[in-house]
């Protein structure tokens, strides 16, 4: 996290402040703002479909078919009779049945015409994959598109979009990605690769996603639309991962962030080093303040988890997606190695978290119950002994749950079959469980495999784990604080 947070928030008084003061003047869009419907299309047309494997549209269509989309799929190709085994049409206007969504892969010059057809056909959403618009100086084409949809209900994603994925309806509207596992993460990114990277990493970790959106040039739908959609409308999403370069919809961004972050966690990444267009400051204050600095403080103020690095970003998303909500900041370290245990303790403290304090009488109590003579302390040094881990776990669960909030398990050595105990632990306890498996061994690989199948994000080292855990503790503490102020 960018700013180390100060946790001693005085929970004083009944000050009702937050909600009422955050209303900026907004212009009501005269458009369909409910996106839920348009993201569950019952029919999709691929405009620019092709039997040529080197074309993007070929990849997109194959992916849609292979992922098992259950709706109707129409290839639009003026020359071929059929594409990839499906009947092809010369234009969407030739299709008798309704078409909910189109994916546009034809050349930029042709796109405005396609959009006009889409308006006529009463299409609800057009995802424009094609590039070659404002980014190469052809803003005029974008203006034409906007003009075409002016008085209709058609919404545009893009242009210049890498693609979209929704696991709910098995729609893989993208040419170059393995279809991910279904899960609860909603990803929205201004950069195609940013959205792809997170999706791919979550794939490797076998943590599912609900929807992945790449925004493209945002001629119509913006980051605000999707953050809001994920937070308010999308029942399939519990966690929002956003990559924003500079919000397109500046007027609404603040309010959307604040209200959405309160509903569902937003894990955000934003580049900030190059301060483009910082206006010459007239005052002392103005010359010290910077857009990105203020952005960081605002995220901290409103409970948005802004990550500094890609590593932290992915770790944090994985942790939020797979761990139970931490009820506090105290970690009980259970480790095979005293050394790694100490390092882990350091890392936790560095991140503003606490190592659980186990009083003397509790230590004695645990020793008595488990029969373990040594290693029982604030950091549980349990040696390479699965039985020790089991015994301590049972003892803590049965008698001493008040002393900690998170099990911080640090396995510095390969322990064959340990995954069985870990899975059991995760399932049975209501505490948060963080697993750090440091060794590079076959038992570790087997454990990681099994735990990933169980939807669990695993760490290679305590520093990354501590940071991700700290982010999660911070967010839920912040949420609790906000409740006090309402």
């Amino acid at each position, binding site marked *: 996290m960018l*700013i180390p947070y*100060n946790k001693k*928030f*005085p929970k*004083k*008084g009944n*000050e009702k*402040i937050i909600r009422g*003061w955050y209303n*900026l003047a907004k212009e009501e869009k005269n458009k369909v703002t409910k996106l839920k419907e348009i993201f569950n299309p019952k029919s999709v047309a691929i405009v620019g479909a092709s039997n040529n494997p080197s074309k993007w549209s070929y990849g997109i269509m194959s992916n849609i078919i292979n992922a098992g989309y259950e709706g109707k799929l129409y290839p639009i190709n003026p020359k071929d009779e059929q594409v990839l085994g499906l009947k092809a049409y010369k234009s969407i206007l030739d299709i008798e049945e309704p078409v909910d969504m189109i994916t546009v892969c034809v050349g930029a010059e042709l796109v405005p015409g396609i959009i006009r057809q889409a308006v006529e056909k009463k299409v609800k959403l057009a995802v424009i994959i094609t590039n070659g618009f404002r980014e190469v100086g052809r803003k005029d084409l974008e203006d034409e598109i906007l003009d075409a949809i002016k008085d209709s209900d058609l919404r545009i994603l893009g242009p210049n979009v890498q693609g979209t994925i929704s696991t709910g309806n098995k729609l893989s509207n993208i040419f170059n990605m393995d279809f991910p596992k279904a899960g609860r993460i909603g990803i929205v990114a201004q950069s195609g690769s940013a959205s792809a990277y997170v999706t791919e990493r979550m794939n490797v970790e076998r943590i599912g996603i609900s929807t992945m959106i790449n925004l493209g040039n945002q001629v119509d739908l913006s980051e605000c639309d999707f953050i809001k959609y994920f937070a308010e409308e999308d029942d399939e999403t519990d966690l929002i991962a956003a990559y924003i370069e500079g*919000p397109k919809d*500046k007027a609404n*961004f*603040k309010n959307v962030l604040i209200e959405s972050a309160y509903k569902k966690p937003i894990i955000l990444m934003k580049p900030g080093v190059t301060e483009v267009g910082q206006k010459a*400051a*007239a*005052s*002392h*204050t*103005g010359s*010290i*303040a910077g*857009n990105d*600095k*203020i*952005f960081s*403080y*605002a995220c901290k*103020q*409103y409970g948005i988890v802004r990550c500094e690095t890609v590593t932290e970003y992915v770790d944090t998303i994985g942790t939020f997606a797979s761990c139970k909500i931490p009820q506090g900041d105290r970690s009980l370290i259970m480790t095979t190695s005293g050394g790694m245990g100490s390092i882990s303790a350091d890392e936790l403290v560095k991140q503003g978290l606490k190592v659980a304090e186990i009083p003397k009488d509790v230590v004695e109590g645990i020793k008595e119950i488990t029969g373990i003579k040594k290693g029982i302390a604030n950091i549980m040094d349990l040696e390479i002994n699965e039985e020790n881990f089991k015994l301590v776990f049972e003892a803590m669960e049965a008698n001493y749950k008040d002393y900690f909030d998170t099990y911080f398990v640090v396995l510095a050595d390969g322990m064959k079959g340990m995954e069985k105990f870990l899975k059991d632990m995760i399932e049975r306890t209501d505490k948060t469980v963080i697993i750090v498996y440091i060794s590079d061994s076959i038992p570790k690989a087997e454990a990681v495999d099994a735990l990933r199948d169980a939807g669990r994000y695993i760490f290679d080292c305590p520093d990354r784990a501590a940071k991700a855990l700290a982010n999660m503790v911070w967010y839920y503490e912040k949420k609790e604080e906000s409740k006090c102020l309402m």
Partner: protein
Amino acid sequence: MSNVNMLTEPKAVELIQSYGIPYPSNKFVTSAEEAVEALKTLKAPVVMKIVSKDIVHKSDAGGVKVNLATEEDVKNAYQEILTNAKKYNANAEIEGVFMCEMADKGEEVIIGIVVDDIFGPTIMFGLGGIFVEVLKDVTFRVCPINKNEALEMMKEIKGYKILQGTRGQAALDIDSLAELLSNISKLAVERKDISEIDFNPVRVYEKGVKVLDARIICNG
């Protein structure tokens, strides 16, 4: 610093006093006689500052006279200030002179407002002198903030211990400072015509706080 849309000190002070922001007792005068008259209501010593939209760096222009206690001091100071001002900028439109009681010495902080294009009015806080100037030991919050948030905000600066009392110095009135930050943040949110504010310095005492200079820039 741009002077085009900066409020003159009397106008700025009028604005902030309406938000309960403490400023030394003051009087705006337009003649030496008025200045002498004003001395009766203000507690000596006083400081006198030139009031002109066209003169931003008042000290540089010789437009600031301090430690004035007698009628003679005040009368002379008035003349000198006007003379200096005319020498500095012959075309300056001079409205008069602002007289303020001089404040006791104390720890100084800087509070500022800047309007971010995404988050709107944002408040900045830092200890005065090198802490802000050199070390950039400052912290920000998006407005408005309440007292609790202001307290949190102040604790973030590296030099916070100085406010708590250190090196033989007693603890300072952090509570009043928090209230001041909160009031300023409310001002910033309500006055949408303001684009930047510098309160530098703000003096903090064991009891109470006082803003000694206010630069308020309005939108063009």
